[in-house]
């Protein structure tokens, strides 16, 4: 005890520096996380005290809630639709920019701009681009080359349209990460490969990809997590005059959009908390699988 106190006194200043940040972290993150775990076992509408219901919320979600499964399916489609495409394109861009080309920084800035633009603003603009009939810019281009207008935000295409926009919006961030990874690969490996007579494809497959692995792992995990939590795009693209989110017949309802509707429009906080924990469990499992797959140690 005495020893701990001594230790504390020695680092008093450090602890005091940490304190404000720690306090805020506790109040706004740690306490809510545990409070919400408790609420997930209750029926709670904010105004009246929570009523304990055991695993009822979880059971209802998993076995009696078709909207949850619809939202889950849409979310998985979104993740599968955005993550690999976004990684492939951003890696390609990073490699292109990594070459000795002119206007390198200009290109970097250019591709990074969507990442620093508010996703809300981006979604509002894209909603106009996607406008139906002859009114949207995309349909305008299509009609000028003789293709009939596409109903981008109709029941079948809303989710794919949001995927396209999200891939575009996420490119810059991943590209910068890949670029950093590429620049961390020592030139000597490429030189050695060239001496061995490797083609460009060989160099990419046997030098670039393996050495990019740590970056790839990071980008993949982060992309999956953030794709799983997609919300703003869905909200802006699908809310209607009645305040409902998710589009016609829930065609683009994602899991976080559903969580939002349950928690913050219907104020079923217990149910919403249970949903949040289910999302957490799914993400946790996906991340573990991800880590296991790429666990192989890389040593060069």
């Amino acid at each position: 005890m005495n020893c701990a106190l001594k230790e504390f006194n020695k680092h008093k200043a450090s602890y005091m520096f940490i304190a404000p940040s720690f306090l805020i972290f506790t109040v706004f993150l740690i306490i809510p996380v545990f409070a919400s775990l408790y609420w997930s076992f209750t029926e709670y509408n904010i105004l009246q005290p929570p009523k304990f219901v055991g695993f009822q919320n979880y059971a209802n979600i998993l076995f009696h809630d078709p909207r949850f499964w619809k939202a889950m399916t849409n979310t998985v489609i979104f993740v599968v639709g955005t993550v690999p495409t976004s990684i492939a394109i951003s890696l390609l861009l990073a490699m292109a920019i990594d070459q000795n080309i002119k206007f390198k920084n200009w290109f970097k800035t250019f591709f990074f701009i969507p990442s620093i633009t508010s996703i809300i603003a981006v979604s509002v603009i894209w909603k106009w681009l996607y406008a139906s009939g002859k009114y949207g810019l995309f349909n305008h281009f299509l009609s000028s080359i003789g293709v009939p207008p596409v109903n981008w935000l109709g029941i079948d295409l809303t989710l794919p349209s949001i995927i396209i926009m999200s891939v575009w919006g996420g490119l810059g961030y991943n590209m910068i990460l890949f670029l950093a990874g590429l620049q961390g690969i020592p030139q000597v490996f490429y030189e050695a490969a060239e001496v061995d007579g490797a083609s460009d494809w060989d160099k990419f497959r046997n030098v670039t990809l393996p050495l990019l692995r740590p970056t790839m792992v990071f980008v993949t995990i982060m992309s999956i997590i953030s794709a799983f939590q997609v919300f703003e795009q869905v909200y802006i693209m699908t809310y209607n005059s009645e305040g409902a989110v998710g589009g016609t017949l829930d065609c683009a309802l994602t899991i976080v959009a559903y969580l939002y509707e349950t928690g913050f429009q219907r104020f079923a906080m217990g149910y919403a908390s249970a949903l949040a924990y289910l999302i957490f469990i799914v993400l946790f499992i996906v991340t573990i699988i991800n880590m296991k797959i790429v666990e192989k140690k890389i040593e060069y």
Partner: protein
Amino acid sequence: MRGHKTVKMIGYVLFPLIAIHMICLSGCAKKSGEKEILMWLVGSEKQAQKITELGLDFYKETGVKVSCEAISWGEAHSKYLTSVVGEVTPDIGTMGLTWGTEFGSLGAMVDLRKEFPAELEEISKNIFPGLAESIRYKDSVFAVPFDMSEYIMFYRTDLIKSPPKTWKELTSLLSELNSGGKSMIIDWGGLGWIGYCPYLWQSGGDFYNKDGTAAALDTPEAAAAMKFFTDMYKKYQVPLENKPVEQSFKVGDHPIFISGNWKMKSLTDIAPELGGKWAIAPLPAGPTGKRTGFIGGRVMGIFSMSKHKKESWEFIKYLSTADIQVKLYEATLESHDTYLPTNMKTWDMMPMESSFKEPLREQAMDSKGPPSVLGWDDSTRFIDTAIQMIVLKGKDVKSALAEANRELNGRKKH
């Protein structure tokens, strides 16, 4: 990781704010004995300013200070809810039409009918009948209307000879438009319950029975209305997806549309060159001969935790008078708000071209608000689903309505 950053950011923002707030609290303490009421307005900053301004005159008359703060629609509901839980409510709140009943039934709002029966009667007498009906919950009234938005039909006078006055005239107009590749847009509440309710009421049906004890979507009236409404999409080419109404109205692809009165403002702003080429008219009459439309808007009520209930009520009365409503209306002509006064007397005094005022007034006289039944807000999406299943998936009207009816009954609270 991202979460941690966010928390830090919140901290950086929060600390100075708290500090400023503390300084303000100690520095701007009001004179002792002076009463001050706080009002939250769901809407624009400009309108809140105008109300604070009007509050200055109120102060001269009564010695009670008024300050009005704007809160945005998106966060309003949760903000009110948390303020109730945290016991830091304003004295007066303006809010969505159905929220008064929702908060009131939980005990968070003053029952005006119990506290101020005679004066409430006086106010209610002057507001449009449909609005007056939708604020009543059982024997209580928790809020009175602040403003309203109403359903109205817009049409191009150069392309449509006369606006349809009955369902029959509407369908024959639509057939005529269809043959030229044109059609109509249902803008406010399209493919949803708001779009459906005028037809439901016009055919003599309603969402619930008279005393609000059970859902009534299993009636032949509800089915007839649903058939007529969904046929507009299925047969008469009313577009399923959102269209930029002003543009397609301008180019003439959709020379007629049904929306809220606020579109009058946006048409003037976005398509000024159309000025004089369009007009508004009440909705076409249904089988009952009624032209009932939907009416929405904001209501204002007093929170139970207010320490100045009487003063707050005085201010609500003040805002409900015709003189003050005219001033509020005039102020919104300059800002981008749309505000339609709820007091019928105001309508005689307010400056508006009679070619607009009269159809709006006529429609408002025959309009209804959302049902004042607890559990309604949770139920609306089942009506939306029924409509969308009929139109998009070919489900039959009867079984879709029966399903919605079951859900409405299941979600009704007592």
